[in-house]
């Protein structure tokens, strides 16, 4: 489903076009001020000046300048800033949207949502009596409880501690899967994106720079993410077995095994691994001691100068997936690396999401 939006706001112009899948998480990423909030507001119908195209669950929400009024859109919106009703208690804030959805159409349940967001003790409070993170959790709950067809979340977990995040993220994951609705998620946290997102939309100065599956966008050399200091590649794999003695877990990604710090998950569980470009070196020969170091047979897909002087960024193909490696220009010369070469990637660090 193609989403298009045009909006002028003073000197800033939003001209965004991207593909919104029927389900799954689309993360919107981009520098402060690039138009992420503006785009979400357009999708929610909150920008009367916007024109464009948006269709959700078979219903037209925007067609040219015509726009379905916001309150007729089955959406859930978590604003970037506090947006609780100051005159209602937490409970009545939460019930505000809940009550306005016909009981038959409610697909998100009251009790589990309240519990998972840790809101039981706060129900009688007013927003002014909450901490920043508590307010944010209420806002998330309020949006979810409308059982939306489209979830728009503008940094919903920005002021939450990692424990709270760790509790809420899996819930969000499960929820949007159960509901089978698209979730558009703005976040500056690479961690959250790596964990949650299926698709990444990269914005810059009001325009969509690129979009695609997370693993692709992260590693596209023509895109800025690959050139960041902390550039990472994302690998999808599945748990194969545990090595209790060494506290390691074997994960198979595209037929090759990667050992990670022990995971408490049964074989077969799909996992996402991320590998930082600077944790990958390249060798012409396989590593001698493969039990301690992950050594993957890969093929060089592309090479490009890195912003860090004297360095080169190498894209390595691992079956259908892709890894990034940042090496010095000197090593590239010494090893005479060129496109198409089959080499070994020595991976020094793997994070599990």
């Amino acid at each position, binding site marked *: 489903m193609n989403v298009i939006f045009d909006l002028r706001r003073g000197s800033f112009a939003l001209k965004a076009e991207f593909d919104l899948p029927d389900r799954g998480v689309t993360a919107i990423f981009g520098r402060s001020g690039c138009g992420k909030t503006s785009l979400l507001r357009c999708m*929610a*119908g*909150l920008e009367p000046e916007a024109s464009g195209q948006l269709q959700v669950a078979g219903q037209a929400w925007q067609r040219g300048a015509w726009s379905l*009024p*916001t*309150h*007729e*859109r*089955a*959406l*859930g*919106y978590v*604003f970037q*800033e*506090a*947006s*609780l*009703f*100051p*005159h*209602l208690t937490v409970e009545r804030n939460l019930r*505000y*949207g809940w009550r*306005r*959805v016909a009981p038959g159409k409610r697909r998100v349940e009251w009790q589990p949502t309240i519990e998972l967001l840790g809101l039981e003790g706060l129900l009688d409070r*007013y*927003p*002014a*009596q909450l901490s920043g993170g508590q307010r944010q959790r209420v806002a998330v709950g*309020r*949006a979810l409880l*409308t059982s939306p067809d489209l979830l728009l979340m503008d940094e919903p977990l920005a002021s939450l501690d990692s424990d709270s995040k760790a509790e809420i993220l899996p819930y969000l994951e499960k929820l949007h899967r159960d509901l089978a609705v698209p979730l558009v998620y703005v976040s500056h946290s690479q961690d959250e994106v790596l964990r949650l997102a299926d698709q990444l939309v990269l914005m810059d100065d009001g325009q969509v720079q690129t979009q695609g599956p997370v693993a692709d966008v992260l590693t596209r050399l023509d895109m800025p993410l690959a050139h960041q200091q902390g550039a990472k590649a994302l690998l999808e794999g599945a748990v194969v077995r545990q090595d209790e003695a060494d506290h390691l877990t074997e994960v198979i990604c595209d037929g090759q095994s990667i050992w990670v710090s022990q995971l408490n998950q049964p074989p077969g569980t799909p996992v996402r691994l991320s590998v930082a470009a600077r944790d990958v070196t390249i060798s012409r020969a396989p590593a001698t001691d493969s039990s301690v170091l992950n050594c993957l047979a890969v093929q060089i897909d592309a090479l490009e100068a890195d912003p860090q002087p004297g360095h080169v960024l190498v894209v390595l193909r691992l079956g259908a997936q892709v890894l990034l490696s940042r090496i010095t220009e000197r090593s590239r010369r010494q090893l005479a690396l060129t496109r198409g070469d089959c080499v070994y990637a020595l991976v020094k660090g793997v994070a599990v999401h």
Partner: protein
Amino acid sequence: MILGIAEADWIALLLTLRLALISTVLLLVLCIPLAWWLAFTPNRGKVLVEALVALPLVLPPTVIGFYLLILLGPRGAVGGALEAAGLNHLAFSFTGLVVGSMVYSLPFVVQPLQNAFQNLGSRPLEAAATLRAGPLDRFVTVVLPLTQRGFLTAFVLSFAHTLGEFGVLLMIGGSIPGQTQVASIAIYNHVEALDYGAAHGLSLVLLVLAFVLLLSVYALNRRFRWVGVAQ
């Protein structure tokens, strides 16, 4: 005589309360769209309307009453039209009083409402819209509670002012007992008749009544007030 107040004065009091209540409530309802428009229109011409709204205050009430009398009377534009339509003109009728006090109290209602609406900000309304609340729903569940104080002020100023209104009402109402003789006119008549005892008595009753009424309104407002603004 009850509490030392003559029956006619009680009737005048009742009439006053009815008048103040009816015209204030009507005014509140009718001014909502105007105040909303003034609060949110980007139209530069709105300053004209803002200035116009305050104008009824500028003339002495008797003179406003005089002009209204001409307008609403049988030879005026409004009264004449009504007569031509087989209805009665509005001078010297309760309806006329309602119209008169509404004209005069207009700024007391429009201005506080406009201020309250302007202070609202768009965020609560946007949030309500994303939660499926339609325009009327938003107005009732978000705008009204958040602008409660503005409505209160509009109510109090218009209501209290109508209780004390005298020049306009005397002019367009005459002083017909039971029909257009409101308490303020009755007090005025007592004073003119140098019957200070009756004037003080009725004034006192009016004051106490108004005080109790306002007190309940304010207390109710306090009671229903939601807790503070975000720290």
